[in-house]
Structure formats: structure tokens, C-alpha cells
């Protein structure tokens, strides 16, 4: 973990709300693992004050890629960064996924939850069979289709809420059948909280090992401020930034 002075290499507008940023970050790119995240300083002033957490989308030293949706002040500022702009980034942060070999892994990504999933596909597809369920509200939220297609996937299942691309429905619609029909060993999922809530009901009894990557409002990103608390099954709190962002699905209280 280090605060690194980095350079923006490209800040590509995917569509009106989504950006894919390529950043030269030597230390962070060399030391990151699937599941890790970074805290990005979006402004040199104190407004906004806090750094913003982003999952690492891809890491190929000396570069990392961030894929983000403009949702507020911080992401709006980040969208304005241009090529060669300096950017201060703290990372890599958080825990990471374990190593897998010869497993059938189902990855489930809802909306911008594709970020850690994409990194995981990249890492695990060499020695495992990867099935991907990817869904979003509509076509404009379901980006990176070309990037994903280029990955070694056993099967890809696409969904949109309105049916504009792929099947009409939610990412959770057919997961039970997908797991059973393909004898899935492991699931890795990332998405909004309602997605997890539905998912846990549908898959927790199927015998798979279930990993999730969680989002949270964060202060520091390295365990100091205790802002990003999530309640666990035994009613204690875990910190998303240092105990996570990867958790076993059954450890969280939904």
C-alpha cells in the first residue's frame, strides 16, 4: 500500500455516464490482485475532501484501468481528467480473492459491478472454466461487451431490465439453473445491494462457495476511520476496506 503519484494515459468516454480510465501506476499495477481497490484523489482542493474508492478493472504493469459511472461530485471531477494529468492514488487496498485451479466459476456482475469481475475473469480464465452473467438496466449501462467477448469464457449470459440487449430480466433470474446445469463450484459476484439480497436467497443452499465484492461509503480506505462498517451474521461489524471488499456471502447479514 502506497500513495502513488500517477499519470492519466487515457480517459475514454464510453457513453454519457461511463468512463474507462487508463492510468500509469507502476507500484499499484505491480502489486494488485483481483478484488483489490484504490482510493483516488479527485481534487487537489479540499472540496470534495475525501478520496474516492474504485475497484481495479484491469492491471497490466505499469498500467491500471478504472471503469466508473458518473454518479456525483467526485466521479464528475474524475471524468474531467485528461491525458497526462497527474493523479494521486492510494493502493492497492483491501483483501483479494484466493487462487483457483480447475474450477467451474460463475461470475455474476450487476451494472458497474463488472469492475472486479472483469479483473477476476482476466486472472482465472487460464486455469478455470468461467461462466459470466452480466446485466444492467439498459443497453447504455451494459458496456464493455467487446472487451468481455474477447475473454476466454465458457458461456456468457446477458440481461437488461428492458430487454434491449440479451434476455429481459435481472442477473439473478436464472442463476439457480445456471449453477445446477453447469455444475458450478464457485460463484464470485458484485453488484448493488438488492442484487445480493436476491442472490443469497437463490444460491446459498446450492453447495457452491460464494464470494462477493462489496461497495461502501469510505473515509480512508485503509482501516483507520471505521466508516465502511458492514454488519455480519453474528451482529458484529466488519470493515469493507480492510476485512473486505471480498467477503464470503454467508458471513454478511442481509
Amino acid at each position, binding site marked *: 500500500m502506497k500513495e502513488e503519484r500517477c499519470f492519466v494515459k487515457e480517459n475514454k468516454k464510453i457513453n454519457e455516464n461511463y468512463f474507462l480510465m487508463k492510468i500509469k501506476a507502476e507500484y499499484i499495477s505491480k502489486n494488485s490482485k483481483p478484488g483489490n481497490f484504490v482510493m483516488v484523489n479527485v481534487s487537489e482542493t479540499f472540496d470534495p475532501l475525501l478520496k474516492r474508492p474504485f475497484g481495479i478493472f484491469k492491471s497490466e504493469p505499469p498500467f491500471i484501468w478504472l471503469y466508473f459511472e458518473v454518479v456525483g461530485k467526485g466521479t464528475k471531477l474524475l471524468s474531467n481528467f485528461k491525458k497526462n494529468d497527474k493523479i494521486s492514488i492510494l493502493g492497492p487496498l483491501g483483501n483479494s480473492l484466493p487462487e483457483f485451479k480447475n474450477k467451474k466459476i460463475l461470475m455474476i456482475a450487476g451494472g458497474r459491478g463488472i469492475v472486479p469481475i472483469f479483473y477476476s475473469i482476466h486472472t482465472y480464465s487460464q486455469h478455470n472454466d468461467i461462466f459470466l452473467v452480466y446485466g444492467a438496466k439498459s443497453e447504455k449501462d451494459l458496456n464493455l461487451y467487446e472487451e468481455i467477448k474477447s475473454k476466454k469464457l465458457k458461456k456468457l449470459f446477458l440481461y437488461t431490465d428492458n430487454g434491449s440487449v440479451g434476455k429481459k430480466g435481472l442477473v439473478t433470474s436464472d442463476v439457480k439453473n445456471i449453477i445446477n446445469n453447469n455444475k458450478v463450484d464457485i460463484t464470485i459476484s458484485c453488484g448493488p445491494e438488492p442484487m445480493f439480497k436476491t442472490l443469497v436467497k437463490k444460491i446459498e443452499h446450492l453447495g457452491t462457495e460464494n464470494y462477493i465484492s462489496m461497495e461502501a461509503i469510505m473515509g480512508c480506505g485503509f482501516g483507520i476511520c471505521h466508516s465502511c*462498517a458492514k454488519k455480519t451474521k453474528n451482529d458484529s461489524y466488519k470493515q469493507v476496506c480492510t476485512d473486505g471488499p471480498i467477503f464470503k456471502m454467508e458471513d454478511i447479514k442481509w
Partner: protein
Amino acid sequence: MVDLSTDLGFIKLKNPVITASGTFGYGEEFQDFFNLDILGAFVLKGIYKNPRSGNPPPRIHETASGLLNSIGLPGPGAKELQKIVKRIHRLTKTPIIINVCGDTDEEYIEVAEIFDKMDEVTMLELNISCPNIKRGGKCPAQDEKHTYKLVNQIKHNTSKPLIVKLSPNVNDISSIAISAEQAGADCISLVNTFLGMAVDLDSKRPVFKNLFAGLSGPAIKPLALKLVWEAVQSVHIPVIGIGGITSGRDVLEFILTGASAVQIGTINIVEPKASVRIIKEIEDIMKKLNIKNLDEIKGKLKI
């Protein structure tokens, strides 16, 4: 050469930069960023007798140049912290300050006594001002009689230097500062966070379950500076200035106002190496302005 040291009477610090409670963990989390030896001192996260899990989320809300928090002082309890203190003392010789908390006076005294017995601990800071306690954030610091009684009891039961950390959420800071001094405090530190509130227009609910939360960060600096000024005018014991400090210039402004040292808080969360930068900036400014030691400017504000 400039001399950054500052004398609090009961201890001389190598520089006036102390990291504030709740923004610096237990120190060891910052080892990856810098050598703890560079600091004047550091205050550990506030501690109660028993383990606490803290408040339900959301626990923070960002404001313009500020941060509202309602963390609820989660912690491992005094027994576990004793082990941590031994561990960090092996890492650094920088003075360790324990931030003592309590739901009752008895608990405050019990916690203070536990750490008073530890050789690894240099000072105690009494957190009578934490606004995160339930019942609308009422605390001993809001009542001068309660402040006097509690500080007096702690002083009778402990022997280490005692810093009393004051709340800004009072009508008259001078009377509270004087109460702490008369009860035997060796030093006062101020300010803790200002009570604030955030509401969510979509849900039509307050952001925090406890309704109020504590505001910190650059937004509060002028408010803090004013209260530090008033405290300095009221007491003879040293004053540690706290509130929105992000630069060496900010530190020197507090010293000029009469503070003997400062605590830096929220900026540690934003920029883990902030204290390294701030100490360097103090040195650079002193060289530039030809200030040889802090006594040359301490309390020298021209009114």
C-alpha cells in the same frame, strides 16, 4: 537551523505536531507510510473499558470541505489496547497518548487507572467531549461542574500528565477551560468535533440514526481558532489547538494564536502522509520567515 521543539511544561516535544485521536488508528497502521519517530506525539483512538462495535452505518457524510462522523467509538476495550500499546512502543519512542473514554465517571476513572500504570504511556487525554454518545450528544464537557468533578477525580487517581479535550458545543468555552485547569488538568486540547446534522431529501430522513454527528475538517478551522484564542486567554496551562489543520501554515497560525502544540486529525484520513508534509512545511516557513524557535511567535498575535 530552526528549532521545532515545544515545551508543554511536563514534557518537551520534538515538534508541535500530534496526530489526533480517531484519525490515526493505533499508530501501527501508518508504519507503511512513514516512520512514527518523526511525530511530536500521537494520540490513540479513544478507548472504553469494554469492546464496542460502534454505530450502525452510515457513519460518515461528506460536506463542503468537511466531514460529519457518527462512528460511535468502536474499539477492542482497554485490556486488548494494553497489548497494542506494548507492541507500538517497541516500534517507536514517540510519546504515546491514550484517549480515555467512559459512559460513566466510574468507567473514565477505571480506564485512566489502567493506562496510568503503563510505562509505555506518556500522557492521558480525557475525552470528555465526544459528541457521539447517545442522548443528543450530551457529555461531561457541556457542564463546568461535571468537568471539574471528573477531572478532579481522575487527577486524584492517576499520576501521568493529563490533557483534557474540550468540546466546542458549549456556550462559554472559557468557563469549561477554567474548570479543567482548577481541577488539576496539566493541559487542555480543543476542539473536538462540532455537532452538525445532515438530511436526505429523497428519503426525507436524517442521514444519521443518532440525528447529530460531529463535523471536522478544513471547514471548522476558523471556528476552532476562535475557541483556541478564548481558551488561551482564560487559562495558564498549555493549550493544544485542534480543528481543520491541513498545512504547516495552519499549524503556525494556531501557535501564533497561543497554542503550544496542535493535533492534526481529518487530514490523516485523506492523506496518510500529511504529518510528514506538515512538519516539513513548518520548517520551511520558519526558515523563510527567519523564525528560530516556536517561542518567537507563540501567542504573539498583534491585537
